[in-house]
């Protein structure tokens, strides 16, 4: 296992004298509970869809041993730690020795510090153990650097390289285009979802901004943005849907594709991992 540096909102905790020794949940797969039902006359049980993923719980366990090993030094380190973990939304990042950085966002559930007393009163402690529990609503790890795919030629399918978990991002359709149709296909070439827009996009000035994260569609004309939701005239039931690696095969790098019928396009997203 490579050495991993954990940072919280960009801060390496060792910088303030906090050392993480165990981090349950960082390397674990996301829990995927299933409901079951038993059928009379059959062994075992039936699994009931839909299958869902739970949030990810990260537990960072370690000790606080500040460079200034004094009572005041420990107080200062723990004070900083409480402040850092209470900041609100936390971005936890792991960096391995290969330089791969993955990030996840979460909020603090609890931060417990337990001064090591020995025979001393706790107020004299200079070292403490701590446990920080963080809940991550989106349980997937995202690659820190985004991925962009140009689709410069109408009617051509362009591969969407993904991680092991679905990615949401942005699709931009650039004019000149007339009633562009965006088609997302699985690696076999079968359409998975299709979005039809009824609009004319002028070349050089107009583009459609499809925000998959928030479900917004914006039309830009010469720098002025207006809602473009009403331009989506077919495929509303499929908006927004993610780019899903299960529409391809990660292990053999077979990817789903994206194409536009008119104009050109780009797809922007962060690869995500289970």
């Amino acid at each position, binding site marked *: 296992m490579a050495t991993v540096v954990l940072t919280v909102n*960009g801060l390496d905790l060792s910088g303030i004298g906090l050392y993480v020794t165990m981090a349950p949940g960082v390397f674990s797969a996301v829990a995927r509970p299933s409901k079951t039902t038993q059928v009379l006359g059959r062994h075992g049980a039936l699994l009931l869809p839909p299958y869902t993923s739970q949030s990810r719980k990260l537990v960072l366990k370690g000790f606080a041993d500040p460079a200034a090993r004094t009572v005041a030094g420990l107080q200062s380190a723990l004070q900083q730690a409480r402040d850092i973990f209470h900041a609100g939304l936390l971005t936890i990042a792991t960096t391995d020795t290969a330089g791969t950085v993955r990030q996840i966002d979460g909020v603090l559930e609890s931060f417990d510090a337990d001064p090591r007393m020995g025979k001393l009163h706790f107020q004299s402690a200079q070292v403490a153990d701590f446990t920080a529990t963080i809940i991550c609503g989106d349980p997937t790890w995202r690659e820190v650097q*985004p991925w962009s795919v140009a689709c*410069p030629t109408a009617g051509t399918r362009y591969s969407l390289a993904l991680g092991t978990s679905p990615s949401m991002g942005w699709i*931009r359709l650039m004019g000149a285009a007339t009633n562009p149709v965006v088609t997302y296909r699985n690696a076999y070439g079968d359409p998975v979802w299709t979005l039809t827009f009824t609009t004319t996009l002028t070349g050089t000035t107009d583009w459609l901004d499809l925000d998959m994260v928030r479900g917004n569609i914006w039309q830009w004309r010469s720098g002025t943005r207006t809602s473009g939701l009403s331009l989506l005239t077919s495929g509303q039931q499929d908006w927004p849907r993610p780019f899903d690696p299960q529409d391809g095969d990660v292990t053999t790098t077979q990817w789903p594709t994206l194409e536009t019928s008119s104009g*050109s396009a780009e797809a922007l997203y962060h690869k995500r991992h289970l």
Partner: protein
Amino acid sequence: MTAPTGLFRREVTAAYRHPLIWLARDLTIDARTGQAGTLTRTTTKAVPDSGGTNRTVNHSQPGWVGNTAVPSLDLGASESLQWAFSTKPTAMCGLIDFYENGTLASAGLPLLTICGATFLAPTLYLDVSAGLKYQITHNNNVSSVTATLAAAPTSGQRVQIRWWLYSDGKVQLWQSINGAAETTPGASGTLALASAWNGTPALYLNAKAVSSYGANRFIGCVVMLGNQSQAKLLEALT
């Protein structure tokens, strides 16, 4: 979300305690600190994706570059990115992370500017010196002080420039090229701080207000209060 002006911000992340943080990798021109970004460009241009394939982006459409080692936002001729900037002249600092892509070709081309809509003093800006090195200038509308770097990056190199405005009005730059250790020529002379920047101030990347444009590929930009270390500034861009 809109950042309250002149206040420390604690709503979402520790980053919100700082005046401005923007990262190209977020794929938005809006700053992490809440300020909405404004991109000015009326022309089209071709930018490469992660695989190096070009696509043409239209009027006001951000040109995200995918095939640099770290994805970046291409800002070229007649193009700037700006955010409202409410911090008054005070001890402050920042770090700008970018790929050199042509700004250094001509003296006076801008990298970063804090000014009103018309680039009048009082202002603080980074631009190119007569000797084609990056420099920082603090102008309080009475006089100005400048500090100029001794070395210049070449096209395609990743550059991190840290700047300080001291409480006594001095300015100083540090430069790291391709991850090498920072170098600095030292601080300028002192200069009294004005009570405010001119006009309704904004922080512009790649422009002096909406005139005179550079040409670089920007990875990130942070502004903090006080005079902070490189490590502290990079923490915000992690």
